[in-house]
């Protein structure tokens, strides 16, 4: 089934796609995540907000099994993340990839094609990179015109869209993004959110997105999770008040939340 077909968003046995249960994580002696319990349901667009060092990215890395919790448990599609093997159901877009700095030689097509593999890909060196599913994923993020370029030759916004295509080529049920709009200009950001909005609304893709962009998240997300080591607020965006945001960030935040902006929902 290719990317542009519908996403069968099947949750785990308890109905949730992703669940943190009383999760704690320490970096050495520093507490990064403190007793967080949170569920993301199928079809949800969950935004994780919070100041720098509030544990947002750590929470994501715990969800993906990149870090192991010091306490509590994380479940993906109802399975403990430590024993989860069905990684084809999950797409991940990191904030930045190490390859960008090393002049990585892979073309955009190769980069996206690698996302299609689930587990090891024996003898994939002999497979063509330019395949219908790869081109379709690039088309979905409007990046077909740079398919032969190296990733390091692209702008930051273009790189993020290629990484999004790399995640989408797997036809995932859950898409996890860590500050995908960081360093992108307004038009690039709007293009990115348009793609995500369509995927969530039209294809039923479950999205978990870490961001500093409060305005965009209040506009785009169906649920916001405010982190400050612990989970300080969880609910629909319209329930989040300016006072709560000010307390979270430690300074006045004037967030315009207007129903008209949620028309697409």
């Amino acid at each position, binding site marked *: 089934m290719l990317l542009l077909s519908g996403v069968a968003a099947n949750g785990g046995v308890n109905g949730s796609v992703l669940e943190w249960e009383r999760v704690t994580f320490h970096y050495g002696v520093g507490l990064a995540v403190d007793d967080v319990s949170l569920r993301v349901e199928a079809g949800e667009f969950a935004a994780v907000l919070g100041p720098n060092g509030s544990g947002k990215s750590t929470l994501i890395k715990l969800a993906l099994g990149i870090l192991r919790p010091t306490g509590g448990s994380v479940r993906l599609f109802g399975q403990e993340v430590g024993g989860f*093997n069905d990684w084809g159901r999950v797409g*991940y877009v990191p904030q930045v990839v190490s390859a960008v*700095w090393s002049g990585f030689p*892979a073309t955009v097509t190769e980069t996206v094609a*690698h996302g299609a593999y689930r587990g*090891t890909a024996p003898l994939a060196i002999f497979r063509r990179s330019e395949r219908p599913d790869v081109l379709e994923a690039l088309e979905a993020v409007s990046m077909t015109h740079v398919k032969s370029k190296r990733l390091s030759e692209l702008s930051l916004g273009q790189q993020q869209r290629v990484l999004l295509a790399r995640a989408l080529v797997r036809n995932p049920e859950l898409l996890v993004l860590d500050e995908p709009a960081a360093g992108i200009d307004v038009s690039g950001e709007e293009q990115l959110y348009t793609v995500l909005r369509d995927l969530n609304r039209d294809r039923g893709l479950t999205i978990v997105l870490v961001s500093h962009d409060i305005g965009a998240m209040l506009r785009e997300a169906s649920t916001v999770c405010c982190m400050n080591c612990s989970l300080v607020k969880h609910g629909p965006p319209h329930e989040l008040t300016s006072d709560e945001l000010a307390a979270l960030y430690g300074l006045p935040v004037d967030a315009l939340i207007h129903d008209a902006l949620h028309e697409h929902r």
Partner: protein
Amino acid sequence: MPAILQYDFMIRALIGGALVGILAPALGMFIVLRRFSLIAETLSHVALMGVAIGMATRTMPSLTALGAASVGAIIVEQLRSRGRLPGDVAMAVVLYTALAVAVVVISFAEGFNVDLFSFLFGSILSVSPLDLWLLAGLAAVVVVFVGVFFVDLAQIAFDDDLARVNGVPVGALNLALAVLTGAVITLSMRVVGVLLVGAMLVVPVLVGLRVAKGLRATFAASIAAGAISAIAGLVASFYLDLAAGGAIVLTAILLLVLANIWVQLRKAAAAAVHKV
């Protein structure tokens, strides 16, 4: 028949050199892309420690070096992957420990300085039939390893967190890559020498990165640059009476300079066409 092919030792050196020229950048590409080039330097010094121990105990130095480099590779990878030490610090600790042990062993045992020199600087006279068989066996293992796991190794070099989420066994493949790198370094010592063997993992890959686009093209260009450097360097070494290792690595550097000039000329040509 050219004079160079009339000597058995030279034929062995050329075959060995070609294998080294192909094997070193085949693994080196994934090391350079991970910004992990210092591991070549570290493991070559660990292999030197193995050579010193082998000579002092009158065991086969190639085998003791192979064992030492494999253990060194595992230690570096464990220290790095478990986050006990940053990657560069882990390598520095292992490098200086191995070098110190080598110096102490050498100072205890006397009488093998000439042999040791051939390991330090490489010697076309010293490539034995056993070295060639070991290199050929290793080449078979590396070809299978890289052929089967090429995309997985590329994914790890691209971003190891992304590779993990793709289900790639990052830890196991990193360990295998480190151990095979140790083996390639050890068996390349006879031709290139301990002091310069690291260059063969890095410089041909830099040539490939300059002239090619795409993973497979870069890989092919890197091993071509490695093989050309090794053979041209050995030929120069034979006719000009130069140290084999130095001649091979200087040839690789020359290719890198030529690759840079070619890239600049192409840019200038493209700019001229754009102006018109």
